[in-house]
């Protein structure tokens, strides 16, 4: 827990510094007769973030907050495994949307999650994994007319569009 607290504060401190540097692309000072420049608002707020990070680090040194005094583990092995599995599966799913579109990657994700993580039987898993994209298609594409990304599978949908529009 202590390590994580320090690491987060340092990373966020670095991020604030980056934000300050990035904000400084626009004037950060006071322009006479006009008010603050375009970069002033994010710059000084990012400076505030940095101060908060330093404050957190000072507390860490003095062990004066609950988290920085805690001896608990930040993530035990089981949590870590779960975290990587879920976050990893999400990343793969979103990545696959670019390639094969939502209508392939969503059922794959649902299959993985329900079968592997949940240990459900094939029948309910399969039904839900197939039903979700079908419902999604009718709700978004047909009734709301919001097209979702399809990647390589795009041509497969041409006949469907011909039917419904």
């Amino acid at each position: 827990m202590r390590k994580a607290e320090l690491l987060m504060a340092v990373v966020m401190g670095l991020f604030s510094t980056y934000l300050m540097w990035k904000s400084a692309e626009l004037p950060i000072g006071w322009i006479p007769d006009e008010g603050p420049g375009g970069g002033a608002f994010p710059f000084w707020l990012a400076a505030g973030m940095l101060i908060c990070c330093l404050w957190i680090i000072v507390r860490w040194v003095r062990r004066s907050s609950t988290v920085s005094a805690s001896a608990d583990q930040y993530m035990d092995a089981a949590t870590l495994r779960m975290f990587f599995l879920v976050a990893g599966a999400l990343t793969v799913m979103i990545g696959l949307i670019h390639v094969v579109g939502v209508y392939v990657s969503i059922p794959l994700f649902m299959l993985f999650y329900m079968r592997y993580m949940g240990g459900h039987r094939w029948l309910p898993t399969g039904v839900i994994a197939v039903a979700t994209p079908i419902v999604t298609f009718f709700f978004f594409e047909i009734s709301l007319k919001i097209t979702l990304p399809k990647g390589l599978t795009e041509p497969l949908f041409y006949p469907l569009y011909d039917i419904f529009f």
Partner: protein
Amino acid sequence: MKTLCKTAVTPVVVAALAAFAFSGIALAGWEPKKPVDFVIMAGKGGGADKMARLMQSVIEKHKLASKPFIPINKPGGSGAEALVHLKQKAGDDHTIMVTLNSFYTTPLRQPGLGVDVMTFTPIGRMAEDTFLLWVNKDSGINNINDFVKAAKSAGNKWIMAGTGKGQEDQLLTSFLNKAYGLDMKYVPFKGGGRVAKELAGKHANSTVNNPSEQLGFYEAGNTVPLAAFTPDRLPLFKDAPTFRELGKDFVYFMQRSVVGAPGMSKEAEDYYRDVFKKVYQTEEWQGYMTKKSLQGEFLTGDDLKAYWKREKDNHQKMLKDIGEI
């Protein structure tokens, strides 16, 4: 699953085909294969957005296209996001965009985008929006001389409200400042409707709104147009002289055009041109143009490109004059 679907929907297919035949769409020639992305270079509720949604409704009502046109707002970076999106869609036959004058100004002000608007496919100029100089009725100002006198004595305390920075409203403001030796302060707001309200609520001293934005307040007698940035007087505002009549040769319009992604196939280009030409000719569109005091005939192909070239050079010069590029 798929075959099951197919057999079940065969009657629907037949019905759909019959409907196409009735709606008079030639089945030969190019047709969109999927819904068309109708990108709007501005946010929801703005002039360009309203117009795009009107076009979409007209297309659906008269069944001018076999697939729906789906409006997508990409207002980011004064239209930079939309321009980059279209550039990345080069060669795509299903992406078109509604543009305004940020079509010229944004690539000029942000050369880093690497967008050359002359490569975009010209589909059609649907209208040109007009501009007038407006003041609040209670200010007692009735003509340009009163205006110049009042604005001169107020110096930089004279507030001109407008939409965006480095865009049409500011270009017009700097023209006025230069032509009459004024020092008006330009305050950008989000959206023309908001600007019109700032004037009616006396938070600003003057604006250069489009007629469609000020019409409500004008009809209620809250605001007055002093002069028009058009070659001839507008039928709706007969009492407002043009700047040409007042001795300043300055004319400015806002284009309302539809463009396609660069490198669109010839067949697709012809298809969209045909669709939008039909939209232009509908009663709804013509009625809208009269009502909102829009001008300009339908322009397409090389004529539209030549128009862009002229306007782009013009804007480049104006932006240089005010030091924005």
